[in-house]
């Protein structure tokens, strides 16, 4: 069973002459432990795909399953619970709460889900520790660099037992070294069994994914085939 399954998902906005087809007949499966990148130009439907996968928005037609649960059958409360427990989000602009420390930001989704404060804090500190942010736990977002803020956002997205990580242009305005660091962290989360969907227009970020899906005008037009091992690029030349 895939962690995320989208079947014939479409999303239409407006009516009549103003009707816009943001997504058309999207089929997408993401298994546990794999990262799928969704590439496409602005307006191709990347962000809509992500908000529907994350149950933040309903599709006009089609079926979305997250961790085996068909979203259209869930009540609003059940969807909110699924989001808190199973889905982590990473946004381009981090979306950290400025009045909370790094540790409090990471712990918040667990506490909202009713996890006792002490247990939530231990899990939060563990997530920060894994991302090399132990000594920044008490810092507020405005005391952190851009790279550190995004690492906190990733810690928040994977804290607890989240199974699906959804990232929208996760390297945002970070420089290439910090952007690579973000992708390494998401990749590491996948190695621990998380399924990730990263939407981006950046081919360097997308190249971290196991599979790259190309969107154009709301449709999946193409995808990469499985990548051969590195040895195919490092074969001995004629001089050896």
């Amino acid at each position, binding site marked *: 069973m895939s962690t995320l399954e989208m079947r014939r998902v479409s999303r239409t906005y407006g009516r009549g002459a103003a009707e816009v087809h943001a997504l058309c007949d999207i089929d997408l499966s993401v298994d546990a432990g794999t990262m799928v990148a969704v590439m496409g130009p602005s307006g191709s439907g990347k962000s809509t795909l992500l908000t529907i996968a994350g149950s933040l928005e309903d599709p006009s037609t089609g079926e979305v399953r997250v961790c085996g649960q068909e979203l259209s059958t869930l009540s609003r409360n059940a969807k909110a619970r699924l989001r808190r427990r199973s889905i982590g989000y990473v946004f381009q602009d981090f979306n950290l709460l400025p009045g909370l420390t790094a540790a409090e930001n990471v712990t918040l989704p667990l506490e909202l889900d009713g996890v006792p404060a002490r247990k939530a804090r231990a899990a939060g500190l563990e997530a920060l520790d894994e991302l090399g942010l132990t000594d920044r736990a008490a810092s507020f977002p405005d005391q952190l660099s851009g790279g550190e803020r995004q690492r906190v956002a990733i810690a928040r997205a994977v804290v607890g037992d989240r199974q699906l990580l959804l990232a929208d242009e996760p390297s945002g305005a970070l420089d290439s070294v910090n952007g690579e660091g973000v992708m390494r962290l998401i990749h590491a989360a996948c190695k621990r069994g998380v399924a990730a969907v990263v939407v981006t227009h950046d*081919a*360097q970020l*997308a190249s*971290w994914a196991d599979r790259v899906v190309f969107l154009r005008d709301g449709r999946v037009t193409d995808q990469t085939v499985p990548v051969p091992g590195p040895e*195919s*690029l490092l074969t001995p030349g004629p*001089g050896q």
Partner: protein
Amino acid sequence: MSVRHALLALLSEGPKYGLQLREEFEARTGEVWPLNVGQVYTTLQRLERDGLVESDDDGQDGPQKGFRITTAGATELAGWLRTPPDMSSPPRDELVMKVLVALRVPGTDVRDVIQVHRRYLVQLMQQWTRIKETEAESDISLALVVDAELFRLDAVVRWLDAADGRIKRAAAGPPQADQAHTDQAHTDQAQADKTGTTQAVPRLRRRVGARK
């Protein structure tokens, strides 16, 4: 890639044998550019002829013959490091030519052609990224070579993205300030995609790809 100057750089660290130079060249370039041992000795002979390196007086030709850099060689190396390579004229890029030709071939969906190349490039980038992930962390030379390849391929993907956008806009006609018109243009384009018809794109006014 200047093998000549790479050998001078290795000899600037101290005298070395030919075989040793080949091994170090490959190690320093992340083993991405294999070097023929014959090429090493031919290059060393030319460097010696030009007075940029000296060989052992008593050594026989072969793997045990040592080489060292001369003062003229060190000067040549310092000058080369600070001389930018000629990037002023556009190269005759095969991919650019394919896309330009695709625009002229009747019945060809240029955006599909672009996507074929985009997918190929992204797959190549995935392979390089696997190398970065698994091997380049502890090898700075390899990391730099992989970064250079990724940035080079990324630039080509960006060009394809830009070309894709330009062709889409050109096919949709001149830009409209009115949103309703813009939406209609999108609808027309979607219809054109479905029926396989393509509209004329503006004629290119300048020749590109010619070297100086």
